[in-house]
């Protein structure tokens, strides 16, 4: 585990030195522009607009980083052969994978936290105060981070057995499908055979459920997010990531490097 930590810290250092966190400048500019504009165009619904925009930006920027860097975590190391010298050290392949995953999640956590702080500052600027109900924004940010962690795990899995381009397509595809898991579960029973019904039901439970992470509307309107949902999403993410990372480790442990 200590060795995974060493890999994780280096992965974080790589992201920082490769200027991944520069996206924060873009986010800051976006939020500043929004803060100025919102006062003029949306009297009475400033909070809704600012929170929706801010959370959407946090989610979109995080998605881009998690998909592209998630796929590159292992494939770049294999491509550039930086992995060779590392795997000759007393480090297991699963420890390497876990470290890479942890390093990117740490990067995303720092990035998301900085953006969340920016969002709260803009909210204070617009509303001149913060209320207890604004805690929902923090929960929404936490859910975004959980979602990003799951996306990183999936990207890592795909990159272990296919090309980077296909891994990106698979990850994005699965994310989009995962946004509609509830609809899949509630397909009209009348039009389907029992076998098809059982299959779609099974599929809806196997596919990652990204819909549950979306509490943007609640946060935008200052409604509290139920504690049960926080617990459920946290557990769901931990278990799902553990399964996906185990699968990734199983594939990667048998993979011949170039």
């Amino acid at each position, binding site marked *: 585990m200590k060795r995974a930590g*060493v890999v994780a810290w280096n992965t974080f250092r*790589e992201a920082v030195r490769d200027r991944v966190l520069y996206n924060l400048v873009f986010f800051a500019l976006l939020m500043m522009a929004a803060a100025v504009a919102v006062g003029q165009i949306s009297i009475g619904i400033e909070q809704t607009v600012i929170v929706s925009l801010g959370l959407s930006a946090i989610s979109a920027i995080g998605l881009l980083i998690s998909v592209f860097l998630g796929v590159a975590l292992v494939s770049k190391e294999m491509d550039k*052969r*930086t992995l060779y010298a590392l*795997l*000759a050290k007393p480090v*297991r392949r699963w420890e390497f994978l876990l470290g890479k995953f942890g390093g990117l999640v740490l990067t995303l956590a720092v990035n998301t936290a900085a953006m969340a702080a920016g969002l709260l500052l803009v909210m204070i600027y617009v509303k001149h105060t913060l209320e207890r109900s604004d805690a929902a924004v923090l929960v929404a940010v936490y859910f975004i981070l959980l979602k990003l962690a799951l996306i990183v795990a999936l990207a890592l899995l795909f990159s272990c057995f296919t090309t980077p381009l296909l891994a990106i397509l698979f990850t994005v595809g699965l994310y989009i499908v995962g946004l509609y898991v509830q609809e899949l579960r509630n397909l009209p029973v009348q039009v389907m055979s029992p076998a098809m019904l059982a299959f779609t039901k099974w599929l809806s439970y196997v596919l990652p459920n990204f819909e549950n992470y979306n509490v943007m509307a609640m946060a935008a309107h200052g409604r509290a997010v139920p504690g049960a949902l926080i617990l459920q999403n946290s557990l769901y993410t931990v278990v799902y990531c553990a399964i996906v990372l185990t699968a990734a480790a199983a594939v990667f442990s*048998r993979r011949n490097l170039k």
Partner: protein
Amino acid sequence: MPDPAIEIENLTKEYPFGFLHLKKKTSLEGLSMQVETGEVFGFIGPNGAGKSTTIKLLMRLIFPTAGSARILGKPISDVEMHRDIGYLPEQPYFYDYLTAAELLDYFARFHDLTAADRKDRVERLLKKVGLETARKIQLRKYSKGMLQRVGLAQAILHDPKVVILDEPMSGLDPVGRREVRDIILELKRDGKTVMFSTHILSDAEMLCDRVGVIVGGKLRGVGAPGTLVDMKTQGMEILFELRGTSNSPLLSKATRTGDRYQLQVAEEELYAAIEQLRGAGARILSVAQVKATLEEFFMNLVEEDRAQASAVEVSGK
């Protein structure tokens, strides 16, 4: 006698290829050999012979189709074995956002060294490979030779018992090659086992206690460079001087430079040839054993392999 440092038994590696991966290309075929503790072993062969494949198999970067290997008595699947092994990959490439000192410190962390020990070793190794002045420069600004030096430093950073180097002289200038040779000899003096692959035969002849010659994925000979060559040593060379002309049939077989001639004969024909030349009025200047170089031995094997490959191709057609 101590146990061998590296034992390889029937190691085979096949790569599937083609649309459905139904065809197979054999990169390494039934390799069995040993590297003794404390020796410098050279693994020589042309490009694509299977040298790097063997080393990658030993490092578990790729997995064998058949066979097994042990290093320091432990199976290569045992990750803890890597505590005692140093490895330099071929044409190494490292995290270019790190400086040399940071990279070495990063790798040292996997060996559970204390912070003070890490710092001390990193400084010592950077000095040893001549990079102490470039220690704070990011690796993206390093030349190929400098990267090779960093690679060598990371391979011996943790004071391993066995050091495996894949083409360690590659990309180095003459000074760099000399320094690497010195490091290999120093490792040997310290009782380490060194196995390195190369296609530069003079390096192997100069440094190795034994060499293994691999061609076309098959091991074609193992032994001390001298004994390998001796097996193929044949003939005697006579250097003589002859003024004027002669009808001796030997003259037509000799190479002439001015009045001097160079003649190669079989060992059993030496005395008869000398008699004949003296009878023709020649002055014998020297007689020497014709020693095939490692290069000739190596080239013969390569030629044989090529001839076999083309014969298979022709019969296939």
